[in-house]
């Protein structure tokens, strides 16, 4: 067995509470499929046969195969965790440590991508790396986000990612929030890699291949609670730390382990390093860098690699804007026909080619649906115009409505002749007939939202 997949699906979606206060994030419909379907589909396409899903009890009930509409025979092993304590992703990984027998591929449930996964895994395999991750060029979201009242959200703090000349080796990673005085780069890194590119416009896809010894290291060091926040920067820094003089025999190893409180990652990793591998590297006439006197990889045992996708689809659905954008992109990723066969659409309606209609919908006459997604079991009456909008499951839209650029959550009812522009209608809300709403958030109010804030460490 080479790799085991672990899907983190216990995040609360704290950055889009308007959508997630009623529907759990893994089950949010994107293109009429639950959000968790996309990473599962990616894993299945590539050939995984088993996935370990870490999630909450409520979500677990919904994760039956027919609900998920998975075609293949992938086995889902769902593990529940309690959300009362602040459990980070690393804590969750520690929780399932017993099940992990080989190297592990960790991904987050809100990742929608069509990356060729072998690119990431090949880096991991070929260089015997401790960690390989996926990043993508950040796309600017062009759609107007409803309910923002025109205010621009303060820009997210940038990530500074330093890669070497080949663009594959990860040398430096820090978030703007941690860099108060400025960006400092250690001299040892500059000596070993004189040419470094620092990029800021990258999106971390939260897809990591981790070696087995890293998981063991996590088990030993219980103070690391978040993979993205703490483990990855630690690994990246560890590549260049002064290497401990690796002891040659087992007694010394044990002694040094007792001396240090924290088990050294290198010792854990290098005990497995074998004589023959060293001999191979010695005899091989390959080096990953040229110009200085050191051997391949500068003799470092910890190596972190990154695959940066320049083009292709890669979204992390953790904000409202990303959610809307993902819905636009969804038709390209799904092979199913955009209009579900069981939907009932009358003849005089106009349904645009880039719209998705869910199962068992009823669309009446003289409606026009353009660039929109209509969820399953929704009812749309006559003379309705829906443009650029997202309707979730079970929505009822009465006659004569005009919905533009909005997000309507599940089971909402829009009264007749309502005019909704750039609004967010919450779950099970009722909009009165003849209402006019422009650019507002019509869900439960913010104070109620605040009390529902969930764990902040989750990929939210």
């Amino acid at each position: 067995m080479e790799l085991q997949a672990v899907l983190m699906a216990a995040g609360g979606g704290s950055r889009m509470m308007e959508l997630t206060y009623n529907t759990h994030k893994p089950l949010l419909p994107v293109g009429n499929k639950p959000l968790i379907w996309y990473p599962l589909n990616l894993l299945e396409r590539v050939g995984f046969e088993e996935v370990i899903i870490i999630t909450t009890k409520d979500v677990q009930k919904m994760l039956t195969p027919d609900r998920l509409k998975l075609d293949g025979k992938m086995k889902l092993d769902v593990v529940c965790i309690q959300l009362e304590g602040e459990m980070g992703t690393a804590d969750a990984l520690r929780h399932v440590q017993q099940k992990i027998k080989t190297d592990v591929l960790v991904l987050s449930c809100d990742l929608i991508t069509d990356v060729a996964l072998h690119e990431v895994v090949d880096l991991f395999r070929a260089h015997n790396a401790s960690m390989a991750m996926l990043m993508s060029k950040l796309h600017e979201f062009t759609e107007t986000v409803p309910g923002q009242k025109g205010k621009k959200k303060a820009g997210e703090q940038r990530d500074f990612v330093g890669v070497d000349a080949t663009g594959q080796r990860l040398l430096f990673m820090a978030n703007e929030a941690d860099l108060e005085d400025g960006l400092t780069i250690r001299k040892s890194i500059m000596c070993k890699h004189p040419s470094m590119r620092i990029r800021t416009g990258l999106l971390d896809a939260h897809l990591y291949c981790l070696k087995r010894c890293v998981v063991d290291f996590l088990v030993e060091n219980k103070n690391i609670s978040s993979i993205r926040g703490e483990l990855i920067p630690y690994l990246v820094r560890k590549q260049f730390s002064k290497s401990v003089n690796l002891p040659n025999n087992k007694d010394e190893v044990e002694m040094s382990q007792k001396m240090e409180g924290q088990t050294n990652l290198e010792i854990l990793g290098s005990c497995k390093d074998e004589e023959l591998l060293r001999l191979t590297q010695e005899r091989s006439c390959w080096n990953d860098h040229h110009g200085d006197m050191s051997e391949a990889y500068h003799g470092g045992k910890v190596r972190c690699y990154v695959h940066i996708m320049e083009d292709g689809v890669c979204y992390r659905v953790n904000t409202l804007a990303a959610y809307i954008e993902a819905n636009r992109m969804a038709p390209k990723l799904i092979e199913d026909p955009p209009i579900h066969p069981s939907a009932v659409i009358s003849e005089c309606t106009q349904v645009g080619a880039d719209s998705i209609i869910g199962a068992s919908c009823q669309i009446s006459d003289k409606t026009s649906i353009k660039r929109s997604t209509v969820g399953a079991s929704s009812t749309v009456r006559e003379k309705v115009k829906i443009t650029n909008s997202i309707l979730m499951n079970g929505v009822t839209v009465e006659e004569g409505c005009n919905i533009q650029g909005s997000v309507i959550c599940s089971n909402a009812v829009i009264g007749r002749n309502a005019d909704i522009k750039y609004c967010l209608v919450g779950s099970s809300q009722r909009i009165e007939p003849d209402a006019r709403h422009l650019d507002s958030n019509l869900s439960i109010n913010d104070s109620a939202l605040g009390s529902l804030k969930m764990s902040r460490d989750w990929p939210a």
Partner: protein
Amino acid sequence: MADADETSKQAERNTNVGDGIAVKKQDIARAKNEGKELTKDEKQRLRKEKKQQKKNKKDDKGESEHENVPLPPSQAVVQCQSQKAPSVAPSLALTPVSVCTSEKPAKSKAEQRAERRARQEADRAAKGKKGESAQQPPSGKSKAPPNELQPVVKRLPEHVQVDDPAAVRKLAKKLERQQIPVRSEYGYKVSLFSHLHQYSRKAPLTQQISIPSTVIHPYIVRLGLQYSQGIVAGSNARSIALLHAFQKVIQDYKTPPNEELSRDLVNKLKPYISYLNQCRPLSASMGNAIKYVKKEISNIPCLCKEEEAKKQLLSCIDNYIKEKITLAATTISAYAIEKISNGDVILVYGCSSLVNHILCDAFDKKRKFSVIVVDSRPRLEGREALRRLVKKGICCTYVLISAVSYILPEVSKVFLGAHALLANGYVMSRVGTSQIALVAKAYNVPVLVCCETYKFCERVQTDSFVSNELDDPDDLMVTRKGKIHLENWQDIRQLGLLNLVYDVTPPDFVDLVITDLGMIPCTSVPVVLRVKNVDQ
């Protein structure tokens, strides 16, 4: 190989012996006199004729002497694999060097045997892919007698038949059976080398297998990736890595019920070897290592318990590496140090792990010498050799191969590494080696090749076309000042990029081969092979 054609020709000749030997002789005379291009059939016929005559002379001793038409060496063509370029090779050594006593053939015995052999040949021809000559006689009734002198029929390896659609189909079927994906060819191939595979490094085989690979052991997948990306390069490194991966496979192996370890494990290894072959063609050293491992596995007694068997196999592999690679390197450097004197200027080419080892050892033993490292594009492996030698403290100079004739007057010895040593004494090594040997010969500089015995192989090759390896042509693209030259080479119809990996050096240019058995001349390689075979 040549032997296959040989036996067919023998059969041919024997059947036609009664038919009109005079007619054939006339043909030969005509061809010689007119000197025009013979058709393929005619050439084959003629060759068979001659061999048949020789065979008959050998068979029937004690007959009266009969002067045969002296066979000009130019006509005794020993066909190498490709029938396209019947190179006139002076390797008459391979034809069964029969006693050249000219004797009149005794027709009755010869004819019987001929018929039997003809039938054997016809059977083989029916199975074979290449269209044999149309003159294959209809099968006789008697069976072919087992003749110890008759060499084993060898099939052409598939990796030199890429332009033959039947061979490609056969390979695809075989891979499909083993559940290994087929790697697709890349780019326009230069016509002289269109019979070889050419792959792109950007399209690894891992694209087509499932990610937690179930069919192929993960270590083998990793190894294949490292081969195709060039991370493990160099004959010794590849062999060690291969044996290491085999150790892992053996460790993880569990005998299925009702199967024997000795038979099942060999079958398990076959798809892995095909996979590695797809990633990068196997080297001669790897081939020998695989043969050894397979032999060891099949020698496991059936009553042996699985744990014991596995332990035994693992220790066998360890011993092989220790003996054939590590200890051999020590022995070779002990011999080679005798040849390095103080004040020498030694020329090395590319990065050979063995030559580097020798030079570092010699430096440790306080010999005073300096080294000139010659390098060539696109691999530029000399940089790595340079780094290792300079790190040790040896004085080095670095030149590109275009400057070889300029610096050779200053050189006192040339040390070359080898990828394989072929049975006819030719040295197969990194492309450019034969050039260096040639120029060194012109300047009367001794050329010493260092090679372990496990790299000796029974193949015979006299040119670099027939069996070689084509690397990714995109490696030849170079970026200078931000501009990538040859960027759109695929768009130009008439342009083909050729990135050869190996070439063969004739034994005339090599003065000495230093092996772990001692210092031998190049032509003694068949002796070593024979001794090795007897041992095993």
